[in-house]
């Protein structure tokens, strides 16, 4: 079996005396679309932050394609091919939409900290950024400051920035939070196209989105994964039904 | 030994003066997240207002009314200036208070001119309280020390024992929650800014006669007060106290020491050059501790910021 794209082993995190993540083991294979679900306060966002280096874990390891990520800063993890979006929209509000996307292309195109290249000279940067704008359907907004976009457009831009660098592991934190039905459908289609052939990990509350997109699902409750598997298996798992899904499904009807 | 006692008293005097400024500054910072660059300007206004009042009705009314005037001025500036800039973020706020410091200095020059004002301590305190060896300790200095201590205790009492103190402490950490509970947080902000600047005003009233009342007095003290609260830890009242006293004694002892760096150089086996003018290290040989005394606080601050960005007592990042 090949090395998993992402592998968590014995991951724990405490804030003060409160243990938020209480030993998470998880393997996500290359090319898999994986959703982490769970009730509010289960630690989903914390888990994301531990994987991407925003917080250091108290103990345990995270491996990306077999490489240990312990002690690495977010930018180093990103360079290894992992990119994430945020639950609260996190873009560059004063820069134009195009500029937002272009900046997220710079590192992966090998520009690093160079101060001898002109970004406007590089055709592949301009075309790459325009291609992504096309994908996320924001070409018409190209030259507006990102801060003036509508909420749904900002969420789309957020996803655009996340995928632009060409990372092969994409992590999306509640990509459809706070969206209307039609906006959600648009974002789901968008996610499906842009994560083709990539590994996707996402946190999501909308069960429709989860069951529509994910190949596998993990259920996180109180910092522990109580079930993991295909949507059908998870749906049928009595523990999940008891702890979480039953209530959520009931609420939906 | 006499010198040590005198330095302890002088250092305490200077430290407590710093504390009267830094306590208000740190309170304002922890409430509103803004470092008030113009804080020492309010201290200067206190001295000038008190001088003007003392011209008409004497020193004691000045001690009472000048800080009140300064506090009202501070509250108005918060209401009509700072609150407006607040929406643009912290850096513009800092720039605003920086501009305010410039403007207040120019206004003071406009009304009172460039010269030292003949602002004096009251007659009743113009005597030597006691002497240590050949050094006289004026009564006014001791009066100042006790006044500032009293103010500190009063502040502590208000913050920890009264209802309004509870609201302030709560508003420090959870402004939204406090607002949701029905308290008028903008009003609390305005009040805290007013009280903080009034405290600076008191310091000005008290220090004016000793350190001189002139347009540069805010500039002389301004950045040191900043340094104090950064060293103490932003938002920590105890940190401000400890750092103020530390800096007070540090600068006083450094200023009165006779230590010269030449002894250090000779100590590590270097030979004093014959012709000083030709030596590249001339300045090191003639350097004395009193000369570098004024920059010690800055060195300390940079070290603190690099090694321990939350200061000695601070809990949160700058």
């Amino acid at each position, binding site marked *: 079996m090949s090395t998993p794209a992402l592998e968590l082993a014995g991951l724990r995190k405490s804030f003060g005396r409160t243990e938020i993540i209480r030993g998470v083991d998880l393997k996500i294979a290359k090319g898999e679309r994986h959703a982490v679900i769970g009730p509010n306060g289960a630690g989903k966002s914390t888990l994301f932050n531990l994987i991407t280096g*925003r917080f250091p874990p108290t103990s345990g390891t995270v491996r990306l394609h077999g490489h240990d990520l312990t002690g690495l800063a977010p930018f180093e993890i990103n360079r290894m091919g992992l990119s994430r979006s*945020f639950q609260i929209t996190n873009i560059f509000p004063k820069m134009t939409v195009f500029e937002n996307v272009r900046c997220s292309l710079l590192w992966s195109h090998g520009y690093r900290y160079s*101060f001898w*290249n002109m*970004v406007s000279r590089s055709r592949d940067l301009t075309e790459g950024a325009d291609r992504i704008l096309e994908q996320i359907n924001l070409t018409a907004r190209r030259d507006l400051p990102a801060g003036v976009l509508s909420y749904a457009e900002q969420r789309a831009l957020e996803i655009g920035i996340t995928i632009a660098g060409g990372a092969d592991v994409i992590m999306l934190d509640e990509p459809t939070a706070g969206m209307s039905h039609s906006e959600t459908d648009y974002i789901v289609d968008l996610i499906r196209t842009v994560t083709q052939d990539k590994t996707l990990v996402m946190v999501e509350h909308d069960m429709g989105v989860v069951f529509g997109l994910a190949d596998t699902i993990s259920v996180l409750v109180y910092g522990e994964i109580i079930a993991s598997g295909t949507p059908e298996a998870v749906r049928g798992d009595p523990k999940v039904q008891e702890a979480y899904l039953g209530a959520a499904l009931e609420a939906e009807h | 030994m006499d010198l040590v006692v005198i330095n302890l008293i002088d250092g305490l005097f200077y430290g407590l003066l710093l504390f009267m400024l830094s306590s208000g500054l740190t309170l304002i910072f922890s409430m509103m997240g803004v470092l008030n660059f113009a804080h020492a300007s309010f201290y200067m206004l206190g001295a000038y207002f008190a001088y003007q009042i003392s011209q008409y009705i004497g020193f004691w009314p000045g001690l009472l009314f000048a800080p009140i005037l300064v506090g009202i001025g501070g509250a108005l500036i918060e209401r009509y200036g700072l609150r407006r800039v607040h929406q643009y973020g*912290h850096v*513009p706020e800092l720039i605003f208070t920086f501009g305010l410091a410039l403007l207040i200095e120019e206004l003071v020059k406009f009304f009172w001119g460039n010269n030292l004002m003949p602002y004096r301590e009251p007659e009743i305190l113009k005597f030597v309280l006691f002497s240590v060896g050949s050094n006289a300790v004026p009564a006014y200095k001791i009066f100042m020390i006790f006044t500032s201590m009293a103010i500190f205790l009063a502040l502590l009492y208000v913050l920890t024992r009264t209802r309004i103190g509870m609201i302030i402490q709560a508003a420090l950490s959870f402004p939204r929650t406090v607002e949701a509970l029905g308290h008028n947080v903008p009003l609390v902000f305005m009040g805290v800014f007013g009280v903080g600047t009034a405290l600076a005003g008191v310091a000005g009233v008290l220090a004016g006669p000793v350190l001189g009342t002139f347009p540069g007095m805010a500039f002389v003290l301004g950045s040191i007060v900043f340094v104090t609260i950064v060293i103490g830890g932003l938002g920590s009242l105890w940190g401000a106290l400890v750092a103020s006293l530390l800096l007070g004694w540090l600068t006083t002892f450094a200023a009165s020491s006779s230590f010269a760096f030449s002894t250090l150089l000779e100590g590590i086996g270097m030979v004093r050059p014959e012709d000083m003018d030709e030596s590249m290290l001339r*300045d090191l040989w003639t350097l004395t501790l009193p000369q570098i005394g004024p920059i010690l606080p800055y060195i300390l601050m940079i070290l603190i910021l690099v090694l321990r960005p939350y200061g000695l007592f601070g809990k949160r990042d700058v």
Partner: protein
Amino acid sequence: MTDTTQKDTAIAAGSGITLGRALPWIIVSLFLLVLPWIFGSNSAITIMNQMMITVVFALSYNMLLGQGGMLSFGHAVYMGVGGFMVMHIMNLIEDYSLPVPMPLLPVFGGLFGLGLATIVGSFSTRRAGTVFAMISLGIGELIAACSIIIVAFFGGEEGIKGDRTYGLPVFGVEFLQQKEVYFVIAGWTVLATLLMYLFSRTPVGRMANAVRDNPERAEFLGYSARWVRFYSFCAAGFFAGVAGGLFAINYEILTEQNLNTVQSGVILLIAFLGGVGFFFGPIIGAVVFTLLQSVLSLQSEIWQLYVGALFVATVMFFPGGLAGVLMMHVPAWRLGKLGSLVVPYIKTVIPAMIGILGLAALMELVFHARHAAAGEDEITLFWTTFDGFSVLPWALASIACVGGIWIARATAPGLRAAWHRANTPDRRPAA
């Protein structure tokens, strides 16, 4: 020079508009070339030299504040150190007759500014915001204090002097005259401005904006916010050093005043007044401030009060500075409706100006009344001399002040409405 010209054309070629991109630079260069023939007097040349040095310094400051989001209270240090080094080199050239042409000297200023910025930046750029501001203040105070202690290098309170004419003559020019120096400074100003502009277009310059807006997001795009800040900081130090070198050449003296915190504060003021949000903002700030400084200071003793008030008003009401105010008009201009604003502007701005001038006159009168020596009743205001204690001038100034502001207030709603109309596109009639 050739190198940058090539670069410039190359960029232009990349995006297809050669002349359009290069044109502003060519126009500015030509303008600077003919300027000394329009304003040839010595005092005009002095002001223009001062202006151009300030432009370079203000632009370098804006690499920190505007482009990188770093508020520095100690930027004068880099200009000062660059200037002091150039002065020492100038003296070495004189003492050992070294064959170095004088116009090259600012490079050394830049290198030493860069060197100091590299050392300081290695620890100060770890964080932005208040920590950075405080460290910059500390370093600024520290080096300013050192400049009085270390006499061998900084020359104590008198500073150090030099003589620029001992360098290798360039085409027979020995730089005895201000006008000759003017061209050196103009050349450097254009070059430095161009390089700083180009820097803002490089990957690291673009990322500086990204880090300013949202450092955390930049980290999740593969960039370390700290290193991006560090590179901007070093570049800013370099150009500040260049400005220092130009200062040394122009004035042939440097003192502690060139690097103390007052100087650092002034450059913050200039950059902000001009507008930190746009690349050209600090240029406007430098030009306006130098003019104010040299013209107003002759007319009024309290000109610094006016500048202080202007600064505070800018921070409160126009956080985009003068450049921001200019750029506010771009949408109306695009809609072709700028013309409709002219009359409302005249109706509001002219009375407002009269009101402000009246207020200034009142302040001058108060100042005169409070501070004039006994018996010195004469005051000169607006090029007229009169008795400062007679009633008429006070009445006139009060009327101008109150009346002007009253009219301006009355016409302001009209201006606001016109502004709104000018910024709304015409609705096309439905087909």
